[in-house]
């Protein structure tokens, strides 16, 4: 299971890649493995303003419906339209082509509350017990 070092993580299994004031968000390898076949993704409206922890997108597998939460507050700048036709990209490349949305980070201090790769790994191990 991959947990790239350079990303930040939420306990709810989202990752965020920060470039200046913009963050790219997706779900982790662990999350996609738990979901298995992703068959539908509901993307947020561009321009939507969300608060940290708010449900932004929905990812559905054959059996389940899962909310995707904003790891930080901000404005949705871009969404991965390709997922509408190829939701399976989330399974194939959770940290690459399977990204879900980009967000303009409102308050960079919120990033400090997210987990490092190491801390995230610990949190999923605890969850599995």
């Amino acid at each position, binding site marked *: 299971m991959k947990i790239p070092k350079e990303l930040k993580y939420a306990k709810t299994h989202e990752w965020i890649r920060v470039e200046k004031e913009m963050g790219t968000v997706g779900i982790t390898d662990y999350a996609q493995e738990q979901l*298995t*076949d992703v068959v*539908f993704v*509901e993307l947020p409206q561009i321009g939507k303003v969300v608060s940290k922890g708010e449900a932004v997108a929905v990812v*559905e*597998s*054959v*059996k389940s*419906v899962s909310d995707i939460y904003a790891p930080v507050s901000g404005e949705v700048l871009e969404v991965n339209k390709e997922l509408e036709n190829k939701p399976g990209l989330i399974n194939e490349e959770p940290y690459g082509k399977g990204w879900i949305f980009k967000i303009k980070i409102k308050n960079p201090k919120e990033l400090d509350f997210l987990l490092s790769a190491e801390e995230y790994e610990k949190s999923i191990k605890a969850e599995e017990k």
Partner: protein
Amino acid sequence: MPKKTPLFEIHKKLGAKIIEFGPWLMPVYYTSVIEEHNTVRNRVGLFDVSHMGEFTIKGKDALVFVQRLITNDTSHLDNNQALYTPICNDKGTIIDDLLVYKFSDERFMLVVNASNIEKDYKWIEEIARRFGKDIVLKDISDETSLLALQGPKSQEILQKVTNLDLSQIKYYWFQEGTVEGSQAIISRTGYTGEDGLEIYIKPEYAPKVWNRILEIGKEEGIKPIGLGARDTLRLECAMLLYGNDIDETKTPLETNIAWAVKFNQEDFIGKEALLKQKEEGVKQRLVGFELIERGIPRHNYPILKDGKRIGIVTSGSFSPTLKKGIGLGYVKADFTKEGTKIQIQIREEPVKARIVKTPFYKRKNA
């Protein structure tokens, strides 16, 4: 304590994701629902469905008793034939749907839903008391395991380990014989819409038979299949799931199993109520629908017509075969016509759908 089938440890070793299904711990998938689904459609898959319940009904009055109990008609059944039927209460609503296996006029086996074992047993006992029939009812669920081998290659594989000539067992017939040297009942039945066989065997032999079938099926690409794919496979064929699509608030006449109510039977539990409903006409009816827009319908999502609520989804999923959202649900009787445009309300948003003929999927050469 959760209940485990005799194959529980084997499922874990095979890497199954285990879920609670009522009191049972069952495999929901081993690798992925879609992969397992396609394996059954194209090749062959093996299911552990040992959580299902089995009762025997024996005695001089067994035939007459079963006739009373079920809405379908056993009078035309030969020995070694099986029959699908609902059983209803006096109001005509559905207590369970099950398979009846007829061994002789004095010996039957009922195969009931896992979640209904206790309820059914009590109900059948009550009916026996009510009519004072000479029958002996026995719950043999704990001494019976059930494996389902489903998919186009099923017969070819099972033939290698049984003394029975499987080509002689027609759809909804069964034989008693051996599998891997152990006593078994084999029927040509299933819940997938593919050709397939179901194997009833003593729990102590289940691991041996399970492992052997997976071994000899390797060349044909056999896979163990979890409850996840079982659900998508049955839904594509519009087969009903008790607790989702039917329960004690629905009558068979409101569903696609109205064919299993035979009013020509002299008498059966629920007949009077069902006759009355037939004369008055049903107010709601089960329909199949497919989504025209992107989205996946789920259990309990509202069904709308021009923004007004006309019904509710009882089963919904992404269909791996058709690659779109499909579902079953009840709508008011005025809206059941094929092609009717409806909407499914998914998270506040109405998503376009239309009523279609079921089954959604039918195998070739069936």
